[in-house]
């Protein structure tokens, strides 16, 4: 049995080359051509791609992802169709699903795991499934080979942070700030502090997210961290009418911003 799952192995290998990791996000079902957005992200230099399955009550999300979720749901988006569509999206990089725990619970832990694996999904992020409650899902996910990524907060105490990094799989998702997702114009002070704490705690890839809206912020956020997730800035463009090509072009700009570290 390998020490790390395919998602983490992939991210570690990329990191080895001195490259900062870029994980762009797309809301599944937001526009008919959304699977093409996945391909465009991959072509533009994404190291992994986060696929959001929209939920009616996204408490960790700000106005942009809320709106993206509402629009996708109104168009009939649902978990089964999104996973099915991913089978056809030839990304060539690992796919990570981000959603809220009720959709997975409602689908059934086992059923979700098998449908996700069949769709080529490697990782899962559930912001409302903290460590305390993780055991309802983790054994099923582990058995199916899905790496469950845990989120670390600026308020997570040191001893808890160590356990959290230990239990996380794939990477550790550092939440930059106290608050919900959404575009920001500057990097929160809490980001740097948390990234440093995570880096001295774990050798798993540390990827920061929330409020990374520009190539400059992506670069700033990776001074210590290994990579970034970018979601709201991309979905704002998408809601304003951007297609796969324009979104791919912005991901390429983010890629260039990160590559300035080299």
């Amino acid at each position, binding site marked *: 049995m390998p020490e790390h799952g395919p998602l983490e192995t992939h991210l570690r290998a990329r990191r080895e080359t001195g490259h900062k990791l870029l994980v762009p996000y797309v809301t599944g079902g937001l526009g008919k051509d959304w699977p093409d957005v996945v391909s465009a992200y991959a072509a533009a230099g994404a190291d992994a791609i986060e696929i959001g399955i929209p939920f009616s*009550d996204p408490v960790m999300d700000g106005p942009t992802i809320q709106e993206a979720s509402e629009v996708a749901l109104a168009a009939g988006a649902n978990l089964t169709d999104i996973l099915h569509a991913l089978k056809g999206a030839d990304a060539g990089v690992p796919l990570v699903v981000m959603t809220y725990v009720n959709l997975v*619970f*409602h689908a059934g832990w086992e059923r979700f795991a098998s449908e996700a694996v069949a769709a080529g999904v490697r990782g899962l992020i559930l912001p409302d499934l903290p*460590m305390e409650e993780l055991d309802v899902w983790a054994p099923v996910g582990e058995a199916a080979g899905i790496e469950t990524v845990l989120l670390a907060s600026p308020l997570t105490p040191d001893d808890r942070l160590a356990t959290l990094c230990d239990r996380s799989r794939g990477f550790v998702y550092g939440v930059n700030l106290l608050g919900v997702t959404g575009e920001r114009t500057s990097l929160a002070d809490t980001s740097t502090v948390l990234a440093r704490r995570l880096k001295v705690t774990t050798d798993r890839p540390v990827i920061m997210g929330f409020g990374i809206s520009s190539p400059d912020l992506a670069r700033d956020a990776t001074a210590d961290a290994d990579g970034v997730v970018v979601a709201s800035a991309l979905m704002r463009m998408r809601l304003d009418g951007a297609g796969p090509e324009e979104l791919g072009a912005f991901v390429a700009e983010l890629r260039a911003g990160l590559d300035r570290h080299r």
Partner: protein
Amino acid sequence: MTADPQLIMGDPGGTGRFGDFGGRFVPETLIPACAELEAAFRAAWADAEFRKELADLLHDYAGRPSRLYDAKRLSEELGCRLLLKREDLNHTGSHKINNVLGQALLARRMGKHRVIAETGAGQHGVASATAAALLGLECVVYMGEVDMVRQSLNVFRMRLLGAEVRPATSGSGTLKDAINEAMRDWVATVETSHYLLGSVMGPHPYPWMVRELHRVIGDEAREQCRALTGGDPDVVTACVGGGSNAIGLFSGFADLPAVELVGVEPAGGAAVGHGVPGIVHGSKSFLLQDEHGQVVEAESISAGLDYPGIGPEHAHLSATGRARYEQVTDAEVIEAFQVLARTEGIIAALESAHALAWVLRARDQMAGKVVLLNLSGRGDKDVAQVADILGRTAGA
């Protein structure tokens, strides 16, 4: 399955479990705050000084104990003995004051000077704004934009009390959306703010803490019923949205197996009647959802019961059979609202009228029994809405 009264309505422990329900399903950022709150509540609840300060406020400020009223005229009509627990006579007009005074004192004790609350009908919002004014705390209330229209007078009341009322515009613009917004605020301000949650829902310790703060309803009612009738009631009933007034009343009788506990849900928001297990707003409970697990909007005449979920302890009480849950229609509620006004001279909140609507429907089974009903709130806030509905009916 028969419930073991010893295990019913006890301390849910560190994991906040009521059988298969409850828990702490919140983002990592809120985990330390939930742990801090649980520790603070456990310490305060064991502290005689805190208990006395709260008891004094409940007595001197809120007007407790609330009366247990022998509703003789209506009893005669129904053929049972109907006792009304008059939570509507509390300061701010509902049972909500019990919880907010406790939590506001706790917030102050934890050094948090800002409280966030959600509200549906506005009763919890008004109560929160009141407690915040009393203790000098900053107060922000989230309210669905649809509810702000339905209950505009309560919006004005909250503002008069110095609270800021912020509209929740997402989703259906009702209670569940107000809760989403309150949780988003809390995630951003958790270091300085206390989330003054208004029902027996949310992440641990809320369902348990809010129940303990409302236990006074049931404890008083049990003593009052014994003093008045020489015994315990046969049936104890209350309306259920999130379920705080019902939990408070039930907790005084849960260890008496002969006492039947009946929660009454709106037919359009019946989480126990029509829901399936789900996880939202911090805990696992029964939840109205579609085939994909998306939360479905509740539809009720009463803004205070317009919630697609139910407190996790109610889910447990239902699953174990210790309590049962009935559903009534809006039309039955309007009828009950008028019956109580005409026979007893009491204008009840539409929420509370749900419990009476069930008693009216079940009058044959209630014959000869002592029925204790929680009149959880007064109906001033609903008069305009009912006038509108009755006017329409009369004109049709």
